[in-house]
Each structure stands twice: as C-alpha cells, then as structure tokens.
C-alpha cells in the first residue's frame, strides 16, 4: 500500500459519521479551533485593514487587561459581577428547585403553576428593568432581581421537566416495595433527577451571566458589564474586548466547575 493511500484512508476515517477520534487527534482539532480564530484576529489587527481604534489586536487587549488589573481595580469588578451572578442565581435555584419538584410530581400544582410560568417566561426579562429600578432602586438588589427574573421562570420549567423524566418504573418499583409518598420523593425522584438538575443549573448559570451584563449596562456603576459600557464612552475598544473575553473565561471556568461536580457526585454515570 502506498503511503499516499494510507494518508488518504486515515483522512477518510476521520469523517465517519458519529465516528471516533483518538485523544491526540481530538486535542489537535480542539487546539486548531481555538488558535485559528485567534490567528485570524491577530492577522486582521496587524494588517492595518481596520483602524486600531475599532479593532485592537490580541497584544493590545492583553496589555489593557494588565493595566486594568494594576491601576483600575479589575479584581473588584470581577468580584462584584461574580457576586451578583451567584446571588441572583442562588436565589433563583433555591426557589425554583422545590417549586419545579412540586410541579413535576403533583398534577394539581402543575395545572396551577405551569401555564402561568410558561406565560411569564415569554415576557422579556429586560423589559422589567425599568420596573425593577422603580421598585427596588439601583442598589445591588436591583441587579440581583434582574438576574432572578431572567433565570427563575426558565429554571422552574426545566426542573419540572427533569423531575418528570424520572422513569415511572423506578417510582412504581418503590411503590410495590411499600414506599410512601415522601419516601418516593426523597429516595427515588430526587436522587434520580439529581444529575439532570445539576445540568439544568449549569445551563441556567450561563444565562445568569447574560442578564448580569444587561443589568450592569443600564443600572450599575461597577462590575465587568459596567466597565464595558464605560469603555465605549471613552473609545477604549481594547477594554471592551478584554471585558467580553473575561466574562467568557469566567463563564467557561464555572461551566467546567459544574462538569467536575457532576463527575464527582455521579460516578455511576461515568463507569461503564
């Protein structure tokens, strides 16, 4: 077999539908996926195609991040934004999980609350901002309230769906073993739905960051979102880039944390 033929066969085998990649090949593609856009960005910025004021390069953004860190108190912006997200998200989760559990378990609760939640979910959370500002002012609680409004209603419905996905045979098996209602909820439904619940939390955490930026763009004087807005006023595009990338990185880190928690708490899902 000629070596050219071999390479061709290897190339073809990469494109098997739902195929399999070796870890090494996978990492190579992943790295290429990260580096290519970065390279393109760098290329555009040094080519002088676009004015540096509108299109700063990766180096400018790094430099700006450094001065932001040294002179402009980057850490406190990160801290206050993270605090708002975590507070709004936690409040949302603490209320949504028991409510979703009830909706997914008991039909009357579902009948009473699900249509209502479905309706509110379609009201744009952003449009509540003026109302929130009138009601709670522009202190910390208004930002937390906006994140709450943005995530809570979605979360309730997703939790309810997670709970409803618990196989009925798991519940019936417990019934035939003599489990009463509260035992079925605590010993079957909750542990069975837990992995899906953690995934729901991971996904809604992403939305919480989106609503944070919205809240900070209109009603704040600190935080990453606010810094982005102010940077626009001063034409500091490099700072806008830095802010956006930082939010992305923090989001990615939290996402990875949730995935780690998933593997740690549900080892049975990963054993085969």
């Amino acid at each position: 077999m000629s070596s050219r033929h071999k390479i061709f066969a290897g190339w073809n085998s990469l494109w098997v539908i739902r195929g399999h990649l070796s870890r090494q090949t996978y990492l190579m593609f992943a790295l290429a996926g990260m580096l290519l856009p970065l390279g393109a960005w760098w290329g555009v910025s040094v080519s002088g195609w676009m004015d540096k004021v509108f299109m700063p390069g990766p180096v400018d953004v790094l430099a700006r991040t450094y001065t932001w860190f040294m002179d402009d108190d980057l850490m406190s912006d990160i801290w206050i934004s993270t605090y708002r997200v975590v507070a709004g998200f936690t409040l949302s989760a603490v209320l949504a999980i028991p409510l979703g559990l009830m909706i997914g378990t008991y039909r009357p609760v579902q009948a009473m609350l699900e249509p209502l939640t479905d309706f509110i979910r379609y009201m744009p959370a952003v449009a509540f901002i003026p109302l929130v500002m009138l009601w709670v002012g522009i202190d910390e609680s208004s930002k937390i309230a906006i994140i709450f409004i943005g995530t809570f209603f979605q979360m309730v419905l997703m939790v309810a769906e997670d709970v409803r996905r618990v196989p009925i045979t798991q519940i019936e098996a417990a019934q035939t073993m003599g489990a009463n209602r509260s035992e079925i909820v605590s010993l079957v439904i909750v542990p069975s739905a837990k992995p899906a619940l953690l995934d729901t939390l991971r996904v809604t955490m992403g939305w919480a960051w989106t609503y944070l930026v919205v809240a900070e763009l209109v009603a704040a004087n600190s935080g990453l979102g606010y810094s982005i807005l102010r940077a626009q006023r001063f034409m500091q595009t490099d700072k806008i880039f830095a802010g956006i990338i930082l939010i992305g990185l923090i989001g990615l880190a939290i996402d990875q944390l949730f995935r780690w928690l998933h593997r740690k708490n549900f080892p049975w899902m990963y054993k085969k």
Partner: protein
Amino acid sequence: MNNKINIKAAGKTFGDGEGGIVALQDVNLGIASNEFVTFVGASGCGKSTLLRCIGGLESLSSGSIEIDGAAIDGPGVDRAMVFQHYSLYPWLTVTENIKFSRLLRAGREDITSADVEAASGRADALINLMGLNHVRDAYPNQLSGGMQQRVAIARALLPRPQILLMDEPFGALDAQTREVMHDLILHVSKLEKTTIVFVTHDVEEAIYLGQRVVVMAPRPGRIDSICPVDLPEKRDQDMKLSPGFLQQKKAILTRIRETAGMRTDYELLERMTRQAEQQNDMQ
C-alpha cells in the same frame, strides 16, 4: 376454595364513553399458594393491566381481587413486582439496590438491630442465590441485561413477599440468557415458596415455567382458556422438544392467532410476488 389470589369478575376500562378501552372484562381466576401461573396472549389483551391490578398499581373498574380473602387496596409489601426494565436505581450499587426496601419505613416501626442483621444476611443469601457475588459493588449500568434482571428479582424477594408479579421480565434478554434465567426463577420459586404470576408473550416460556398457562384474548381483554401444563415438576431444557410440549405450544399459538384477529393475508402476498416477478421479466 383456599386460594392465595382470587380474581372475581374483574373489569377495567380506560377512559370513558365511546372512546373507552375495555382492557379487562369479567376476569375470574383463583391462584393457589406457591403456584406458578403464566399469562400469554396477543399484545393489548390486558396482561399487563391485570398484573398491575394485582400489584395495586392500577385499580379495577369493577369486581375485586383478594389476597388470602382480603380485597386489595393499593400496593403492599406482600406483593413484589419485577418489571421488564429501567426499574433499578442507577445511583445505587447492586447491594444497595437489593436492600432498598430496608430504607423504607412502612411496616417497620418496631424494627430491632437483629432485624437489620437478618436483612443483611438475607441480602447476602439472595446475592449468592442470584449469582451476583462478583458484582455486588457494581452499578446497574455496568451490568448486562440478564444481570440487571437478577438484581431486580433479588430486590423484589428481599422482604419475603408471598407473591411475585413479573411482567415480561426476560423480554429484552437474548435466548441463551433467558434459558439460564428460566431455570433460576424455577429454582427460586421452589426455594422461596412464592406464588408467581408471570406475564409473557413467549408461549414456549409460558409452558416451560407455568403449572398453568392462562391464554388471554383482546378486545375486550379477557381469559380465553386455561391450559394445565403436563410436564414433570423438575423441568429440563430438553423437554421443550418433547412431542407433548410441542403439541401444547401449537395448540396455544393457534388459540392466540385465532383470538388476535390478525391473520397473514396470503392472497396479498401472492399478488405482490407476482407483480415483482413481472417487473423482473420486463427488465
């Protein structure tokens, strides 16, 4: 009569009015203590519904089901159930699954440490009986379908139920695994002295396992006939090829075919064959 289970004029209708489905109509049957009864019939004839009614997971529309003379009302620890699949708890190990009923408060307010001890001993005994010793700390999704059903049976047996209800428990297993499970469940039936009600769509399985085979018919779901099985008590796989066995299998299959109302349309098949041949000729 001194039956373990008495089904009296049992009826079950799903929905009401015009669109109602009569899943069970006037079902009467007595099942003796420590009997092994199997139910077969075309799909939709109400086998699962009847089993679920005995288990208390579904309530009858009319008639009654009595255990030792007392009408049932909902599920009870005297009746254990084994489902076709997805009933194990994937977050618990094999041993934890088997001991699950020990976590439940029902009927154990006055539990003593001796009872707990006894339960652990019982779990060990069942793990050995079911050949699960080497996987006792594994999780269900690490096991083959056959092993998972062994766990499900052990879990059902732990509280010493008087009645074991099984709904196509081996329906998803391959033929070889099934044969092993058949001999295992017969062994269990003898050892544990449980009354077993076993639903299947496999006639061979029904005859091999059952002391009686109850044939059900659909629309409305009802008992069509009851066939006592004439095989030596100690079953053996070779019996499946004996003339008596095959004869009974044929008789039951014919009965199911007749009641199912589904027949092969030989005329249509012939026409299709002819058309295909014509097309071949034209080419």
